[in-house]
């Protein structure tokens, strides 16, 4: 049979050769064998034209034989198979090809990196060694170990000058990423994300405002699975980011995802699992202690006693069983809403490919349960990256990524920072109250105890946090699909290359919430009962990029040049609708589509469309002479629909230089020096406003009529002066590399000057008839320096010690500001407020207040004394007591009140006694991470620190002021109670007095050193792997937030300042230290 076939083939081939000879076409045949002489099955044999385009092909049979008909003799033949080196030969006149393929090791497994790593700014690849700008790269290996649901979490603390903090500890909570501080006094400060060379939107339009949602709701927008990421590059200075023009003012994160590589299919599985343990919170009063304190604090007010027949909460009368049982408990509300959180993350990916097609496919599942009841997050994501080489000239790349997110949040958020959140509520909720209601007979029922109001107030001031966490609903459902297509064409091989990209982004988010009656306790006539909400935002965007890269090979190798031209477009459209109704008939009817109450100013049904477009054109080039002097320059022109015709276009040039000193003759002979370079750069980037259509004067209508006629009013004035916010960055840097890269250091000094800084919602004088405006308000500097060092002090075959270190400092200074901008904030006659001043040319963060001197122990102590220490005597010879805010407030201090220093000795505590208290701008911050590798075991650690950082301990303020009927910390047990008591905690005084004015009592230095993570990773031996049929296997365990060294008495010294305004100071409202998290992980390759 075989013979017959072969014979037939030969005859057939012979015939074909005859035919081919007539038309210059031949039949070729042959056999493929390996070195041992064994035939190779399944080798792909392709006939290629001069450009490498495949014309026809075949594959070898079991015997290694192949035949191809109609082959032009001018073409080439190429043989390739996985595991062997590819061979390409000219056909010429030959018709028989007996070819021996050689084994190839390099094609298998991991690609050995020969060249130095390239760095990617999203448009062109430039050798990291030749970079003229400040960039920093982090690769996938480093990201793998952290229990992070998204890349932003993983980056936390890893990069110098990059500050990432969580907005809350809840699953899916948004992270604030700041690269070199905030460039504006009022912007989100989120850097631009470039995913595989294309901008990736992370913000939703500013006009859209979900009912009760805050920024947290959009955290899912940055959900790129960490396991899909190959590396992340941070572009820090303005010269590097300038090519991204209008959106790059806050820095750029360039993310590259993994791509397929030639080789057998390789299956990878990674697993991460972690447990979060709720740490012990600040000790609070129990029910009995609380019930003792409150009537005492009430009577201190004006001497009238708390009427316990009115306020039956404190009655403790067994003859009144309903009140007695419901209000005689010792409830720990924190425990009632907390649980142990867990997280699991599975990713399965498949990579591989042949000569023509390469693929990377992954699917991931992420599941997290937060430490607060009712918070969880599930995510499924898939990605396929497909590369196909059509010919030597044409390649295309497609990818499609899909993410599905399902998040449950607490209805009111659950971060501990504010009273309005569930955790915040649990801290202040009266502890003598029961979680579940007792009936009139004193039997415990299964209903949550949510009275319409009690002594603490009513919803939304107070509510049952357990009922809120358990019964109120807030879900965020997100679907994001990002299909992408790229075609790459070599116009002139290796010299001129064109790529064209188009990317679609379909991002749909649905928020639904429901506030049931049992959570608020209010009567059914109010709109906070059974309030149902549904908000939908669908974003569609199309971006294109056309790129021309010119990389000529010059005859004189002293010069190298590279040029590129790019043209970008983006069309973004968001369609949204929201509906909110209330008083559905039952707590089971949770959808606003159920007929329910709609007529009320808070309830609404709105919809809208927002659209914006942008264009960008970039021209750039890099030139280097003798590898010593490198110059990079680019210019970008941008057009954006968010500006009026006067200011629609912006131009953003940049120039940067690198001088490689180590190549100069005077350093040449230092052997250990690999590289010593100085860099300097200057660049401009711009920023567009967050809102569309701002430059129009718009008119709106009311949802009611007047005398039956419709009414129109101007809703927004025309912003004729609105122009680009631009950032002018100067950066001077140095790179040092010693001993073949074992010691490397990057150092940078920079100044980013933001001009025409935006301010959203700048309060206008009421006289204008408008309340606020979006305006360019001034100039601000953001300046500082950063140093990063990577070392390997010990490097032996089995034993490596590494030590990385980064340190940075940044400050904000206002240089110029609009007259309309307020110049101070904080009213020192109000409890709890600090005075902050806007001082031109002074860094942000200073605050002022009173000096706390303890507590007036008796009446004598409150006598006002002059500078000589003698009592001040009134005009009629009467004794003058210390007073506050004379003459407008004129409060006379009583024994037990807080004592403040009377700086000017006039017997009156007022604004003249306010002094400088501190600055909450850290002098230094950074991190370091020693790591040890011994054989297969690698231990990495990471510490971070902050120095010289003054913080207002808001927790201390709120838990010891005894100003409301809120629960307090056990510190108040040592409060002043009777004449003569000497203590540091003033008397309880509900709704009165000035015991907690902004004073140094609450100011502390929150310098700290935190042992953030430790990871032990074990890579299994090749021998064991072979036995188990694994390609790679490693396991690791990570512990986070182990120890914090600090003098700070609060719960968490690592607080970031909130907001971006010049009055921002660090308030610490955290009631628990950060959770300790233990993560177990596994990475397996098959």
């Amino acid at each position, binding site marked *: 049979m075989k013979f017959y076939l072969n014979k037939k083939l030969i005859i057939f081939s012979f015939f074909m050769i005859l035919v081919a000879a007539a038309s210059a076409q031949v039949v070729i045949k042959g056999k493929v064998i390996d070195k041992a002489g064994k035939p190779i099955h399944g080798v792909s044999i392709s006939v290629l034209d001069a450009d490498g385009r495949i014309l026809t092909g075949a594959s070898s049979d079991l015997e290694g034989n192949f035949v191809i008909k109609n082959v032009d003799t001018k073409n080439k033949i190429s043989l390739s198979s996985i595991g062997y080196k590819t061979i390409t030969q000219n056909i010429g006149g030959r018709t028989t090809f007996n070819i021996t393929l050689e084994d190839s090791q390099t094609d298998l497994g991991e690609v050995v990196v020969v060249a130095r790593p390239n760095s990617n700014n999203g448009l062109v690849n430039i050798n990291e060694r030749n970079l003229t700008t400040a960039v920093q790269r982090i690769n996938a290996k480093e990201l793998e170990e952290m229990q992070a649901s998204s890349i932003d979490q993983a980056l936390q603390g890893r990069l110098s000058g990059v500050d990432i903090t969580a907005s809350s500890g809840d699953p899916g909570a948004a992270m604030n990423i700041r690269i070199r501080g905030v460039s504006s006094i009022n912007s989100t400060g989120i850097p631009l994300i470039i995913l595989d060379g294309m901008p990736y939107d992370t913000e939703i339009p500013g006009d859209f405002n979900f009912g009760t949602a805050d920024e947290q709701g959009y955290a899912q927008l940055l959900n790129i699975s960490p396991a899909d990421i190959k590396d992340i590059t941070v572009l820090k200075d303005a010269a590097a980011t300038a090519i991204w023009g209008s959106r790059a003012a806050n820095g750029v994160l360039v993310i590259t995802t993994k791509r397929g590589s030639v080789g057998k299919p390789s299956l990878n599985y990674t697993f991460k699992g972690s447990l979060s343990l709720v740490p012990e919170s600040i000790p609070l009063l129990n029910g009995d202690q609380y019930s003792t304190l409150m009537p005492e604090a009430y009577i201190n007010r004006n001497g009238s006693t708390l009427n316990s027949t009115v306020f039956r909460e404190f009655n403790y009368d067994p003859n009144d069983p309903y009140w007695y049982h419901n209000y005689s408990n010792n409830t720990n509300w924190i425990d009632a809403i907390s649980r142990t959180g867990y997280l699991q993350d599975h990713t399965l990916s498949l990579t591989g490919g042949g000569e023509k097609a390469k693929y990377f496919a992954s699917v991931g599942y992420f599941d997290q349960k937060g430490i607060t009841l009712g918070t969880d997050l599930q995510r499924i994501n898939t990605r396929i990256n497909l590369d196909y080489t059509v010919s030597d000239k044409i390649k295309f790349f497609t990818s499609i990524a899909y993410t599905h997110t399902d998040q449950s949040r607490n209805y009111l958020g659950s971060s501990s920072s504010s009273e309005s959140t569930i955790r915040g509520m649990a801290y202040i909720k009266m502890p003598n109250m029961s979680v579940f209601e007792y009936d009139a007979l004193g039997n415990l029922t299964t209903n949550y105890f949510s009275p319409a109001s009690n002594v603490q107030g009513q919803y939304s001031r107070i509510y049952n946090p357990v009922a809120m966490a358990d019964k109120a609903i807030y879900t965020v459902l997100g679907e994001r699909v990002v299909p992408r297509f790229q075609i790459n064409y070599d116009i002139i091989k290796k010299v001129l290359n064109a790529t064209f990209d188009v990317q679609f982004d379909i991002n749909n988010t649905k928020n639904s919430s429901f506030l049931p009656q049992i959570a608020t306790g209010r009567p059914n006539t109010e709109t906070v009962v059974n309030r149902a909400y549904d908000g939908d935002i669908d974003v569609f965007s199309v971006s294109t990029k056309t790129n021309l890269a010119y990389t000529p090979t010059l005859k004189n190798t002293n010069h190298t040049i590279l040029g590129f031209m790019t043209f970008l477009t983006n069309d973004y459209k968001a369609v949204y609708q929201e509906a909110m109704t209330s008083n559905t008939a039952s707590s089971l009817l949770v959808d606003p589509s159920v007929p329910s109450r709609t007529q009320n100013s808070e309830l609404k049904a709105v919809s809208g469309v927002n659209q914006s477009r942008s264009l960008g054109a970039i021209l750039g080039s890099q030139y280097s002479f003798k590898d010593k002097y490198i110059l990079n320059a680019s210019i970008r022109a941008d057009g954006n629909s968010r500006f009026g015709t006067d200011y629609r276009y912006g131009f953003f040039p940049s120039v940067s230089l690198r001088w490689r000193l180590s190549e100069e003759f005077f350093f040449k002979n230092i052997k250990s020096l690999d590289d010593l370079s100085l860099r300097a750069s200057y660049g401009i980037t711009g920023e567009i406003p967050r809102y569309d259509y701002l430059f129009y004067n718009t008119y709106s209508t009311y949802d009611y009529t007047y005398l039956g006629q419709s009414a129109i009013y101007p809703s927004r004035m025309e*912003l004729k*002066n609105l122009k680009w916010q631009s950032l002018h960055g100067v950066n001077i840097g140095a790179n040092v590399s010693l001993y073949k890269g074992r010691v490397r250091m990057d150092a940078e000094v920079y100044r980013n000057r933001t001009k025409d800084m935006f301010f959203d919602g700048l309060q206008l004088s009421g006289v204008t008839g408008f309340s606020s405006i979006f305006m360019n308000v001034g100039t601000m500097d953001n300046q500082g320096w950063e140093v990063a060092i990577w070392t390997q002090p010990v490097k032996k075959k089995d034993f490596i010690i590494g030590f990385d270190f980064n340190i940075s400092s940044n400050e904000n200074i206002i240089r110029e500001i609009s007259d309309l901008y307020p110049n101070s904030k904080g009213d020192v006659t109000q409890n709890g407020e600090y005075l902050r001043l806007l001082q031109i040319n002074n860094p942000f963060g200073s605050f002022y207040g009173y000096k706390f001197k303890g507590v007036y122990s008796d009446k004598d102590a409150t006598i006002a004394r002059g500078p000589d220490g003698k009592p001040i005597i009134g005009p009629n010879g009467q004794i003058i007591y210390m007073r506050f805010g004379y003459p407008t407030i004129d409060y006379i201090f009583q024994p037990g009140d807080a004592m403040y220093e009377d700086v000017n000795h006039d017997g009156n505590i007022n604004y003249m006694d306010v002094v400088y208290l501190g600055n909450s701008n850290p002098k230094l911050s950074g991190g370091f991470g020693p790591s040890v590798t011994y054989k297969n075991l690698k231990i990495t650690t990471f510490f971070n620190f902050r120095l010289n950082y003054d913080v207002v301990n808001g927790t201390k303020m709120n838990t010891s002021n005894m100003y409301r009927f809120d629960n307090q910390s056990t510190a108040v047990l040592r409060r002043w109670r009777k004449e003569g008591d000497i203590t540091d905690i003033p008397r309880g005084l509900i709704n009165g007095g000035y015991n907690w004015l902004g004073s140094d009592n609450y100011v502390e230095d929150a310098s700290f050193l935190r042992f953030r993570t430790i990871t032990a990773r074990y890579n299994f031996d090749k021998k064991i792997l072979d036995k188990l049929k694994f390609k790679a296997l490693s396991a690791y365990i990570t512990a986070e937030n182990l120890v914090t060294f600090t003098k700070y008495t609060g719960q968490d010294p690592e607080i970031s300042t909130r907001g971006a305004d010049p009055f921002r100071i660090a308030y610490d409202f955290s009631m628990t230290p950060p959770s300790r998290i233990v993560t177990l992980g596994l990475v397996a390759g098959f």
Partner: protein
Amino acid sequence: MKKTTVYFLLILCLIFSSSCKKWLELKPQDGIIKEEFWKTKEQVNAAVIGIYASMMESSPTPNDYGLKSYVPSLAELFFVWGECRGDNVAPATLVSGDDIELVNVNTQPTNVNTNWRPFYRIINLCNTVIEKAPEVLALDNTFTQTSLDNYLSEAHAVRALMYFYLVRSFGDVPLKLTATLSDRNIQPLAKSPKAQVLDQIVADLKLAEPKAVTNYGSPASDKGRITKYTINTILADVYLWMDKYAEAITECNKVINSQRYGLIKGATKIGSVVEYNPDWFNTLYYNGNSNEGIFELQFDAQKLNPYFPIFSPSFSTRRWVMNPQIMDVVFTVDFTNDQNYDIRADGASVRAATSSIWKYVGASATALRATDQSFAHWFFYRYADVLLMKAEALNETGAGAEALNIIYNVRKRANALDATDLLPTPADKTLIQDFILQERSREFCFEGKRWYDILRFAKRGNYTRLPILLNAVSTSVPSNLQQSAQAKMLDYNSHYFPIYLSEMQTNNLLVQNPFYR
């Protein structure tokens, strides 16, 4: 190859420059933009209606009540400014600190009730109409000069009325007479002296008067929009404030002689038996737009007034109750005959049983309105006001007898009790002043006039009657704070509000009222 590249670049540039201009032109799909507005007379009408509708707008921050971020609504401020420093109201238990401070004469520049923003918002709407409406005349051929004049008279009159509130509450205020159309119109603006503001108010009203409509064709519009007689009434009030009595009388007479208004029949006394009109409260207050109304803000079922949560005894958010002395001292009670009562007292202005301020929340003498029926109008002016203003001016010009005649007329309608009759002789100018002030307190109880009445009488003739203020303070301020409150009243600047802190911060030409510095 190079040539191709150059061509390619050229073509690219061409495409870029020609098409991107249009491509970047995007307009909002909701709302109307200026480029499409101010084209037709219908749009002018909608903008004028917008002025009135904006006066009914709810507080932008209703959930922040009690917080420093709270901005009261205009309708709320009409009440708070006019009544809360007077002696007819008292704070309810859950009132905010800022509200209490107002009563205690301890107003600070941080007091949210001193935020004049809602007034200037209306002023800006008026300015916008005054500036932009004339442009429409050239664009819309069906738009006549007469109807333009009518619209302008409304805008000028409302602007004058807003400034009148401001000048009475703050004294010197910035005089903004141009519209804020773009961010190029937002320069800081200094205060103008009281006298200049008042002159502007008079000028505006004088300009508006001849252009105004006398009749819109429907009673609701005649009461809900500015007519010629509304302008006369405001002018009378302004002249009284300026102590120009002859002018005030002239303006009052214009209204009276128009024969378009009258008092709604209340009580008729036949012998010793009083017959009460059962529809009086319903006609005048519950429904509104009666023959007596001159200018009423037209809340309706679509747009409820903000007063229900403020006054309703059924709401825990109730902020204000009646002053406890109101029944005993202001209206008095006839203990010998319970069928002899002032019709304006229990069941109309107040509901004594719950201490409630009843005018805005009562459906009848005893029944409360339902929440969704809280559409009682806000009364800027009623005919009774014109009568009593005339009486006041007459008394000042020496026509005491004529003044008393008017006062007794108003008293008769309401069956004011004899105990409240001061029985002045026509020559006793001071006693007639007291009589008028007391009668106004009864007639316009909680209609936002009390504080301005007290201040107007007290400041008359260079504060010769300052004791009126001191007495009022002794009624409203708690005893422990009375002394300091009265001491503050001796500084005339304390009679005017401080400029709200955020205004001081955003307008660097403003100078704080010296009392609060």
